[in-house]
């Protein structure tokens, strides 16, 4: 790795892994909700349906976990903008290398935090139900995880550079919280049916795909509670148009990632190395 990458990759990964705020918001705080889902929110759910409860909770917590890290990505891009300008010119870390290594180190950190959260949730469910709930489609789960972390990365970079290109430093703090705030779209899906619009909502698609690959059951387009109630009342039947097609969801996520990546490249070029602090002068 040392020959292919500069030391920046390793240090950037270390930077994420030693960030106490990330450990608190992405892991400790989410672990609290993982414990709540095992001990409180699972009351009344028959044991044979517990894997669905596990998958649904993990889908929700995953998006909030990576969304919390998204805040750190945006704020670290703001913080390092002057350094990046110098270092990409006058060190061996040129612009291309910088963005590749920044991407890889951030993606690695996002995956590590997601896996830690998953293990913690497995632990709480094991303590409560003495059962280890593993995914039905592990390769699919890996794909869902990769799509989630890639999306959060490109969305965070897009957010950071959009603020710079719009020349609106005053909104920088608010905008940096967008990855987490929009993560609550997935939570709203318990009550709101997004119908066909669900395919355009990547923050919901992340939790929906996680759920699908975890239990091998197609997710709803939203109104999860209402749809489950309907299913129970109608002997397992589902409402027409209430099912989200996973293949379309994957295609939608890929389009979002490619589209946002293209926008990021455009915005980075347009930003011309201007830093957020410079806009405040």
């Amino acid at each position, binding site marked *: 790795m040392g020959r292919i990458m*500069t*030391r*920046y990759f390793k*240090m*950037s990964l*270390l*930077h994420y892994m*030693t*960030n*106490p705020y990330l450990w608190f918001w992405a892991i400790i705080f989410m672990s609290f909700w993982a414990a709540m889902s095992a001990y409180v929110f699972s009351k009344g759910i028959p044991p044979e349906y517990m894997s669905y409860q596990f998958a649904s909770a993990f889908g929700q917590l995953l998006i909030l976990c990576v969304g919390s890290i998204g805040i750190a990505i945006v704020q*670290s891009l703001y*913080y*390092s903008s*002057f*350094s*990046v*300008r*110098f*270092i*990409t*010119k*006058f*060190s*061996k*870390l*040129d*612009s291309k*290398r910088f963005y590749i290594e920044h991407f890889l180190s951030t993606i690695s950190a996002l995956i590590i935090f997601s896996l830690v959260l998953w293990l913690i949730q497995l632990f709480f469910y094991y303590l409560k139900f003495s059962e280890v709930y593993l995914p039905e489609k592990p390769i699919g789960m890996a794909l869902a995880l990769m799509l989630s972390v890639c999306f959060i990365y490109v969305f965070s970079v897009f957010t950071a550079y959009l603020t710079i290109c719009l020349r609106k430093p005053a909104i920088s703090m608010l905008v940096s919280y967008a990855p987490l705030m929009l993560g609550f779209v997935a939570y709203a899906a318990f009550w709101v049916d997004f119908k066909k619009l669900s395919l355009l909502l990547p923050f919901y698609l992340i939790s929906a795909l996680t759920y699908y690959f975890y239990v091998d059951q197609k997710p709803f387009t939203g109104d999860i509670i209402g749809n489950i109630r309907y299913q129970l009342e109608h002997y397992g039947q589902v409402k027409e148009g209430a099912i989200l097609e996973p293949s379309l969801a994957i295609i939608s996520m890929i389009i979002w990632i490619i589209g946002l990546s293209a926008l990021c490249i455009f915005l980075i070029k347009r930003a011309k*190395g*201007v830093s957020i602090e*410079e806009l405040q*002068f």
Partner: protein
Amino acid sequence: MLRIEDLKAGYGREVILENVNVEFKRKTLLLGPNGAGKTTLFRTICGLTKKLSGKIMINHTDLDRVEGTPGLIVANIPEIYRLLYFVPAYNLARLYLDLLEGDMGLFIEITSKFGLDEEFLRKRKLFQLSAGQLKVVLNAITLATNARVKLFDEPFEQLDPKRKDILIGYLENDKNTLIVSTHETWLIKKLSARSWDVAFMFEGKIHGVLPLEKLLNAYLFFGEKPSALLTVKTSTVTFSITTEPVGKPLSDILSLDYIYKLA
């Protein structure tokens, strides 16, 4: 050699540097009061502050066209070292010296001489250092590289007299083109007269460059002197640097900030 041609730079609509034309051929002491534009000049050379017009060259390399090229320039400006936040000072120095192709052994030697040992730097992040410790670390990274041009912005600030002497020793031994910005004129008598030049900076303009040996016994005279080595006209004061024993000995002033007070 660092050459600057018709440089204009500033922040937003505020122009700080205008018509800057200068050539730094060897080690140079850039003397100017606070607010003269020294830091802005360094930031512009490093690409941190946007250049509005002009050209900056190191030997024959136009800095506008440089990308991913270590060994050209380095500076002790704090904003350069903000690539990562939650990383100990030791690791951050190691990262920068790796990217800038510097010598980590030399960095450790320098910081140790300033009383910051390796163990201490492994425990503290950059934002956990005091102003003086931060200055030592940034000076040490800059010294430990082999860049052709090294910019030191107020490197003596926050250092006690003993540490100032140690730093002078390192600056003297460095073989590259150093540009040291300061408002402290006592340095004139401390540096080796044969290897240093001196330039003055007032209100965004550079005056000089003069060989240091000519300034050893120079005087500061308020007003114009036809025989002066240099005459500087600012918006509020005109003074001449002259070898004639009129006015105040330059090295007795201690800081160029006093110029406005003395006038």
